[in-house]
């Protein structure tokens, strides 16, 4: 950072050096700022004071003191009546299971303590998800303990018994079927083969039944395109690790497209580097053409912003370049990049991959042709192993809405879906559900669709259920309950079986299904036990020929693309899915609501993102509330100025604006699903041109991006370009020097302190900036592991979020010549992600300033924090150069002002019993999961051995889908971390802010971009290096 002429900034306010930014930078913790809302205004919460409050506190104080002097409470110890043999209180049990919600798939391990699931980890045995767990899958755990779920079945508004409901539904289904009335089961993508069998059994009983599948973020166009091109209506498997050149066209494949974790793992595999002798010095190159600055786009080496109306044309232009046909022009910048991409793609014949996120089959047909021309089929794309992540059929769903409207359909059963909310025609459905003679929903709460249904027969959370999944042909996965039913719920499968007049024992059904269809032959019992234990069962040789013939229908598609994609001059509105929030099914999940979106770093809202230029043109600034109007529908929401976004576009995230999700989700943001449109039978998130007008009011977006700044210390990030790195593995490194009376020394050579001995272990982390995609899985994993509080929107605005690990997202603009140049460069900045947690400094600045010794150093390299000793002076946080210490401004549990999961008994069941829940007035920070270290050490001691490398993992390293974070004992020469450090020492490895010599236990590896070194930049670097000395 220091040696380059780059300028790094986390937000536009930092780049411009706004007044508020500077003020905040010098005041790490927001002091009291009067808010509009009247909440949090009493002294009990620490803000404001008046006489009455004072008396209250006084009274409480006296009462508390006198109570404390009396009896200690009598606590009970309640053992089992009949203890299961292998279960011991305080020892976690792990179960392999499956997260498969709406087609998102992860094979997981569930940690349960005293019978309650408290943490989800990835299952490394799965070749599909490979041990990675997305932020959303981590957070799905909290949905299990959502207190707003239904406690039993409902008939209309009133509670009912399962028996009565079953009788009524069965008889109504029978009478409808007898009359030939149409029955529909509407669902989101179902990955479970046994559930599909249940539905077909149900159909056998009621033959007028049809199963309609739709996806809120649809990819029906991709399926259709493969049908047109290769007569296979499937989505193929992709392998990004085999690709040398990857081109993404509005495709967030590292985030929300199909299988983000799986693709991230493959993608990073192709981009990992090693400075060891003979190590891998080559990485894939990634081009991205997209409208919004997506997570994937932020990781691209080269990126161009294109409007939604150019989406098809980019594919076409690339195709023409590859096949040598006449080009399509999209403006000088984009054309130049397309030329470059096409050249690289051609050169990488057979190891190239082009993916498009479009739901327009014509665009996808062109992309198929492109991939076919590049020889991708059989190498990077495997058509013989179809994936089933998205099975939605937009046409069928469209027909269903028509059917419900015109009375052609008599009964609908909604299963794992909420079309009133998340379908473009939801409003029409809302008005006509009442026309159905029977409507049933399996929803866990009376959400937008279920509340309109005649019956709600709630299905339990997936962690309470049996099930299975087949994400990919030949890859199976089992789901098992990890807790007994919390409420009187019943699995959807059991309900369907019951109504079909069959036994409702779905466990038996599942076993039987696996016996006949999946495990087949041999000893079933042991095969079943093994599959259940492993969580996955992968059948070799399930795939057919992986190649594909010549794609058909290209010419028609090209004509259609040319016809459809025409740039206008108006503001184009585009919808997108956020990495954390997804399609909004988990909207009532406070962890996800407070999860900063990887790129915008905003939480608790959706917003209209616009580019800087567009904002200027429209006279908008951040937080201005605008009215966005598309084809007669309008929403009002605040503006977020987003560098890197295409000019002339407005992007709004789906998944917000829930009305009946629960207290954390209701009224957060606005619902823009109605903006999505059917275009030629396929749902398109490109809403077309719209009108953006200022309303005059403002709404502050809770954005964490500039909350912790580096205070102009610039050596926090170090990066280089691949050619530079290939020449010199030290490329991009910054080596600070100190001038002493004995001459120039490196900053690590001189110190005030004697340091600490680490005779036993030296725990540390290595974070590879080149592998981190910024997905944020670690943030939620850490939150779940360490009982990190949710503080709510207003407190995030007050800069008091509590996350122990944050991912700093830096924008950077190259070779700035003058101040004016900054603004221009920020149009399409480079992005770097840097996960940051407590650095566990050997010379910790925090430790020396604590007046009560609440934070001290251990002999294992950890910076310890004793909450009970902390008196809350916050000196440590003020003295922390990394800004990783968090202060508990309030008591976040049992506090009605923070009515999230810590405020009710059910929600509190998610608490990790090995980690203290911090109370008000104390500092907290990353402990490097010391509870896991202690547990791992104890396990080793019990077995009279040293800990084995990899046995102990911290929450962030364990859940990282790309292995960007590696944890281990640096005193163990055989550990992965030691070996890696040995290779990268004096090469890519650096510690943050080396010039202040705080000796962190956390090491970073430089970020390498696969970019060409142009003459100008090389000269600039050269200059800086000379000037730097």
């Amino acid at each position, binding site marked *: 950072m220091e040696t380059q002429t780059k300028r790094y900034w986390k937000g536009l306010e930092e780049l411009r050096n706004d007044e508020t930014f500077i003020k905040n930078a010098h005041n790490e913790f927001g002091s009291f700022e009067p808010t509009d809302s009247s909440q949090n205004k009493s002294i009990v919460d620490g803000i404001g004071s008046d006489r009455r409050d004072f008396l209250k506190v006084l009274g409480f104080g006296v009462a508390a003191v006198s109570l404390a*002097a009396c009896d*200690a409470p009598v606590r009970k*110890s309640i053992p*089992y009546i009949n203890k299961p043999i292998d279960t011991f209180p*305080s020892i976690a049990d792990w179960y392999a299971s499956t997260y498969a919600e709406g087609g998102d798939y992860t094979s997981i391990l569930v940690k349960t303590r005293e019978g309650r699931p408290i943490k989800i980890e990835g299952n490394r045995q799965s070749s599909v998800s490979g041990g990675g767990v997305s932020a959303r899958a981590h957070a799905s755990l909290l949905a299990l303990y959502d207190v707003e779920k239904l406690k039993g079945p409902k008939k209309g508004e009133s509670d009912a018994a399962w028996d009565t409901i079953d009788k009524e539904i069965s008889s109504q289904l029978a009478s409808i079927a007898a009359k030939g009335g149409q029955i529909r089961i509407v669902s989101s993508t179902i990955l479970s083969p046994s559930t599909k069998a249940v539905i077909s059994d149900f159909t056998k009983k009621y033959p007028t039944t049809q199963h309609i599948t739709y996806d809120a973020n649809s990819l029906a166009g991709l399926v259709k395109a493969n049908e047109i091109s290769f007569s296979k209506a499937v989505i193929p498997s992709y392998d990004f690790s085999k690709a040398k050149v990857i081109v993404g066209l509005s495709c967030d494949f590292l985030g929300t497209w199909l299988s983000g974790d799986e693709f991230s793992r493959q993608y990073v595999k192709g981009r990992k580097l090693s400075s060891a002798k003979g190590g891998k010095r080559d990485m894939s190159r990634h081009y991205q053409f997209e409208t919004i600055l997506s997570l994937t786009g932020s990781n691209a080496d080269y990126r161009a912003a294109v409007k939604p109306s150019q989406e098809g044309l980019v594919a076409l232009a690339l195709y023409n370049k590859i096949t040598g046909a006449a080009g399509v022009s999209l403006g000088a910048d984009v054309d130049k990049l397309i030329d470059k991409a096409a050249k690289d793609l051609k050169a990488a014949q057979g190891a190239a991959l082009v993916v498009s996120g479009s739901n327009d089959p014509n665009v996808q047909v062109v992309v198929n042709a492109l991939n076919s021309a590049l020889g991708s089929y059989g190498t990077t794309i495997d058509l013989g192993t179809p994936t089933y992540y998205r099975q939605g059929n937009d046409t069928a769903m469209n027909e269903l809405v028509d059917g419900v409207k015109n009375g052609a359909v008599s009964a609908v059963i909604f299963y794992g879906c909420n079309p009133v909310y998340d379908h473009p025609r939801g409003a029409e459905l809302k008005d006509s559900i009442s026309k159905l003679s029977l409507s049933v929903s399996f929803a866990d709460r009376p959400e937008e669709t279920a509340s309109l249904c005649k019956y709600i027969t709630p299905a339990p959370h997936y962690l309470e259920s049996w099930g299975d999944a087949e994400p990919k042909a030949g890859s199976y996965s089992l789901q098992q309950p990890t807790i007994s039913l919390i409420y009187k719920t019943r699995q959807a499968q059991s309900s369907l079986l019951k109504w079909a007049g069959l036994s409702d024992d779905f466990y038996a059904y599942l076993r039987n299904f696996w016996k006949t269809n999946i495990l087949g032959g041999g000893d079933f019992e042991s095969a079943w036990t093994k599959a259940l234990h492993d969580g996955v069962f992968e059948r070799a040789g399930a795939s057919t020929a992986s190649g594909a013939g010549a794609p058909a229908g290209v010419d028609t598609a090209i004509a259609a693309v040319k016809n459809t994609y025409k740039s206008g001059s108006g503001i184009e509105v585009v919808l997108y899915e956020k990495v954390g929030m997804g399609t909004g099914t988990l909207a009532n999940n406070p962890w996800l609501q407070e999860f900063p979106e990887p790129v915008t770093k905003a939480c608790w809202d959706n917003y209209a993102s616009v580019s800087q230029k567009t904002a200027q043109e429209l006279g908008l600034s951040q937080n201005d509330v605008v009215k966005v109007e598309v084809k007669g529908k309008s929403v009002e929401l605040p503006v977020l100025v987003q560098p890197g976004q295409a000019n002339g576009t407005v992007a709004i995230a789906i998944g917000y604006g829930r009305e009946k999700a629960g207290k954390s989700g209701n009224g957060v943001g606005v619902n823009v699903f109605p903006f999505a449109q059917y275009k030629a039978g396929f749902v398109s998130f490109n809403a077309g041109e719209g009108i953006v007008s200022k309303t005059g009011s403002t709404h502050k977006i809770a954005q964490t991006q500039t909350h912790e700044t580096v205070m102009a210390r610039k050596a926090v990030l170090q990066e280089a370009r691949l050619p530079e790195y290939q020449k010199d593995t030290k490329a991009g490194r910054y080596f600070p020097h100190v001038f002493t009376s004995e001459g120039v020394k490196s900053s690590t050579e001189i110190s005030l302190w004697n340091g600490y001995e680490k*005779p036993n272990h030296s725990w540390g982390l290595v974070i590879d900036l080149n592998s981190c995609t910024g997905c944020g899985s670690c943030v939620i994993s850490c939150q779940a592991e360490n009982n990190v509080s949710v503080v709510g929107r207003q407190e995030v605005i007050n800069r008091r979020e509590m996350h122990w690990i944050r991912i700093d997202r830096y924008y950077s603009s190259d070779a700035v010549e003058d101040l004016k140049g900054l603004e221009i460069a920020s149009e399409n900045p480079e992005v770097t992600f840097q996960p940051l947690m407590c650095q566990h400094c050997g010379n910790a600045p925090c430790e020396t300033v604590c007046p009560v010794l609440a934070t001290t150093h251990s002999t294992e390299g950890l910076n310890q924090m*004793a909450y009970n000793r902390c008196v809350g002076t916050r000196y440590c946080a003020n003295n922390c150069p990394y800004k990783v210490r968090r202060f508990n401004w309030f008591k976040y549990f049992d506090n009605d002002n923070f009515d999230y999961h810590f405020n009710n008994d059910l929600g509190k069941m998610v608490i990790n019993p090995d980690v203290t829940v911090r109370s008000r007035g104390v500092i907290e920070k990353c402990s490097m999961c010391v509870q896991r270290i202690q547990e791992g050490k104890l396990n080793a001691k019990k077995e009279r051995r*040293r800990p084995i490398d990899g046995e102990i993992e911290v929450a962030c390293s364990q859940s990282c889908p790309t292995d960007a974070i590696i944890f281990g004992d640096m005193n163990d020469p055989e550990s992965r971390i030691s070996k890696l450090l040995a290779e990268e020492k004096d090469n890519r490895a650096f510690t943050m802010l080396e010039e202040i010599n705080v000796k962190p236990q956390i090491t970073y590896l430089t970020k390498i971009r696969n970019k060409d070194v142009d003459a100008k930049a090389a000269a600039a670097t050269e200059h800086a290096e000379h000037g730097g000395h």
Partner: protein
Amino acid sequence: MKSSLFFKKMRSIAQFFLVALIATTSITQAVAQDGDAANGETLFNNNCKACHATSDEVAVGPGLKDVQKRRDLAWIVKWVKNPNGVIQSGDEYAVALYNKFNKAQMTAFPAFGEKEVKDILAYIEKANAAPVATAAAPGAAAGGQASGDAAPSDLFTYILVALLIVMLLVLGVLMAIVSILSKAVSGTATAGEEGSFSDKLRNGLVGLSRNSAVRSATVWFFVLMVTKATIDGMYGVGIQQGYAPKQPIAFSHKLHAGQYKIDCNYCHTGVNRGKSATIPSANICMNCHGVIKKESPEIQKIYTAIEKDQPIEWVRVHNLPDLAYFNHAQHVNVGGVQCQQCHGEIQTMEVVEQRSSLTMGWCIDCHRKTEVNTKENAYYDKLVELHKSKSKEPLKVADIGGLECSKCHY
């Protein structure tokens, strides 16, 4: 930090003061002081422990705390040598004792002489002084369900107060005498001399009360007393040493662990594996009580619990605060610590009580003193080697980070 050190110092000074006072004023105490406590401990453990506790808890026989205050040394020696003889001699106390303990006679130890008995008494006194030193004063014991443990420290306070009153009186009388004498010597005798003795005393006292040194000494004395009481009281908040709540089932450890010598692990199955030693589940009870003593009303309670599928709600005796992490496996499995070290002579307890204070000071103290059980544990091999190269002292828990915050607090 500073303040807590200050408190500690204050406490130790105050305790020293107390102990010194009592030691010099009590004859029985002096007897005990003669003995060799270390030898006494061996003797006690080998001969007495099976039936007697060093505390005032009644095991098979009475608790031996303060036994030297109840009886004089000669009597005790006589009794130990030949209890039957003392009873036969018609000694009132002995007969009462005999009757109280269901006419179960104590084993005679004819080989024991005055020396041995003194040693044992010294050990008993030491054993009782230890918890008093770490734990705490009236306030602590008052922390709820305290047993009669508070008595001795109350007694000390009374003695102290009584002593002080006596001293004040002596001082007053001395000062009166001094003033009278000085007047007599200076020959300025006045009419006042003719007053009665009570008048003189009154005058003396009035003079005394006007003496600023006496006044300030008195004020300081009371301030210090109150401060000490407050500090002790505050230290005692939350300490439940001696807590022995009534349990829903009158389970006797003395019977099961003491008499029948059932291994602790048999019921507390988690002790070698995890954080919690675990309270046995009802099915473990049923391993034996499915056959044995089925008709007992206490055991019937277990049957009822199983039939109703309602677990037995035991009252938790050892309540460590949530902020402290304690793991049984680390101490018992890895460290090889005996249960009794923290839980006291559990095999003699009819009702389980909290023997140790469970304060942080108590934990730390043990971590400082205890050697690490490194035998045949490869985890420690390198650490032992490293330690040997640097120090001749044995490897203590404190040497491997046993005093670090994050070992217990996270």
